[in-house]
């Protein structure tokens, strides 16, 4: 490697949000060497959150969400090309189209993909869809525009709930099937999931919790599904919204700590190898990363959060071109948003890292509230529903490990004693058919751990 970190060859695998923001940051930080970005999708980097929102409503075309660049990253874009392997000794990325790509430093930003329906033949039925890419969104939007009689959404996580919301806004009948007790329970715990359930029902969603879909039916074309309660449901479209799978398979033989829960790294986004030894030339950012967080007992976090992809990409890129002492840790508190059924839901911290929750402002009845989560007497997360302007206050409390329950005195005329905390009822994710978008994945960087405990 050349002595000057601002020169040499950098390769980024994954040409989406994290890959783009990292490329820009590298140039902003003065990197003048050669930069290559490899992505298996044919499209330039685009934004995914609108795909389950504006795009399904037909307001925005599926392929019209290209991300604006902060600056031209002056990179060689290898789009439509899949990375198939990594040779860490020869320092080369193996590509599906043959010639290996040499690098001095590598950034892995391969994100996640939609978890597929386990039965391949059923998944291949016409009308069975997933939602992760703009091509997926184009298909789904087209189906919705055709006016199906009923849509079945399997999985009531954020994506599934947003799809259901879009269906109702379009006046389409929709059934949501969820193995867990309520929507969003994997991300928000029991108390707020009751709000989510009420919301869905109030908007006319046929919500079925505590059931699993046992089979998708159809003869070439999807016509309906069998449920574990013995019932059969007729529908024209089925969206599998059962969470995400990390795109790490291509790293299977690389010797890196890559597994189904992601690719493990240290606080500076440097990737661990399978023995837990940190590398200095391979970095990771975005949805594919697992990184330790001091606020959550240094457990490894796996996030599917837009803001994390941006923040982590910036830190990784900075560290790729900075010598040891000027490197930065990635310590950002996780923040997530979702909009559904006319509500703006934002979360800061890790709501599942909690044993108690209380409603500190607003109320479920008003449809606007702040829920604060605590773990062993300190605040670890907060969720706002249509009260986003207060969120940064609670973020400050999380960052300073403030005591839970928070002190009384919310400026909303409630008595100066906060509501009593109740157990936060975070379920075991294995009992859900949606993945939480934030997951604590233990302390160990090695991949044995991830293999021993199967995800989902």
């Amino acid at each position, binding site marked *: 490697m050349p002595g000057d970190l601002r020169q040499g060859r950098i390769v980024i695998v994954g*040409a989406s949000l994290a890959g*783009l923001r990292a490329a820009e940051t590298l140039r902003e930080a003065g990197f003048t060497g050669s930069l290559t970005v490899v992505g298996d999708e044919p499209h*330039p*980097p685009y*934004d995914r*959150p*609108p795909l389950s*929102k*504006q795009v399904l409503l037909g*307001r*925005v*075309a599926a392929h*019209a*969400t*290209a*991300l*604006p*660049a*902060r600056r*031209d*990253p*002056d990179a*060689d*874009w290898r*789009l439509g090309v899949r990375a198939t392997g990594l040779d860490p000794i020869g320092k080369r990325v193996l590509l599906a189209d043959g010639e290996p790509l040499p690098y001095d430093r590598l950034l892995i930003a391969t994100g996640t993909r939609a978890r597929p329906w386990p039965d391949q033949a059923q998944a291949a039925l016409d009308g069975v869809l997933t939602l992760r890419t703009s091509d997926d969104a184009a298909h789904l939007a087209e189906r919705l525009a055709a006016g199906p009689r009923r849509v079945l959404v399997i999985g009531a996580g954020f994506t599934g709930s947003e799809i259901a919301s879009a269906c109702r806004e379009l006046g389409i009948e929709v059934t949501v099937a969820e193995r867990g007790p309520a929507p969003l329970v994997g991300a928000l715990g029991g108390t707020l999931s009751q709000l989510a359930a009420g919301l869905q029902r109030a908007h006319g969603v046929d919500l079925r919790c505590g059931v699993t879909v046992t089979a998708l039916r159809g003869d070439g074309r999807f016509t309906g599904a069998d449920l574990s309660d013995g019932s059969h449901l007729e529908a024209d479209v089925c969206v599998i919204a059962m969470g995400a799978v990390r795109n790490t398979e291509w790293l299977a033989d690389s010797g890196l700590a890559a597994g189904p829960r992601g690719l493990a790294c240290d606080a500076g986004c440097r990737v661990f190898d399978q023995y837990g030894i940190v590398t200095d030339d391979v970095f990771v950012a975005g949805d594919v990363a697992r990184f330790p967080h001091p606020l959550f007992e240094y457990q490894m976090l796996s996030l599917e*959060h*837009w*803001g994390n992809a*941006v923040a982590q990409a910036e830190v990784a890129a900075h560290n790729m071109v900075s010598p040891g002492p000027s490197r930065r840790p990635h310590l950002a508190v996780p*923040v*997530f*948003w979702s*909009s559904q*059924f*006319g*509500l*703006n839901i934002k979360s800061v911290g890790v709501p599942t890292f909690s044993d108690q929750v209380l409603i500190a402002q607003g109320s479920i009845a008003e449809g*606007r509230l702040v829920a604060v989560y605590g773990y062993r007497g300190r605040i670890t997360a907060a969720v706002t529903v*249509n*009260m*986003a*302007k207060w*969120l*940064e206050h609670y973020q400050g409390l999380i960052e300073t490990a403030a005591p839970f329950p928070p002190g009384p005195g919310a400026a909303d005329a409630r008595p100066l004693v906060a509501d009593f905390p109740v157990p936060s009822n975070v379920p075991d994710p294995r009992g859900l058919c949606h993945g939480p978008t934030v997951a604590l994945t233990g302390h160990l960087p090695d991949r044995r751990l991830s293999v021993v405990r199967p995800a989902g």
Partner: protein
Amino acid sequence: MRIVVDLTRCQGYAQCVFLAPQVFELHGEEALRYDPAVPDGQLDRVRQAAAACPVQAILVGEQVNTGAR
């Protein structure tokens, strides 16, 4: 021109909706929706919106050029 709103930062002040109502809209009281591809004739308004956003959450820029170098 393209825009992306960092909805992690956005606090729903809706300044952008007032100033460029054909590009930004509120869904309910607080959830922001927008058209990422700025329609013709809206660029001035979008720039005003970006300048006005109290948390500077709106990024206006060109789609990255991925063509041959």
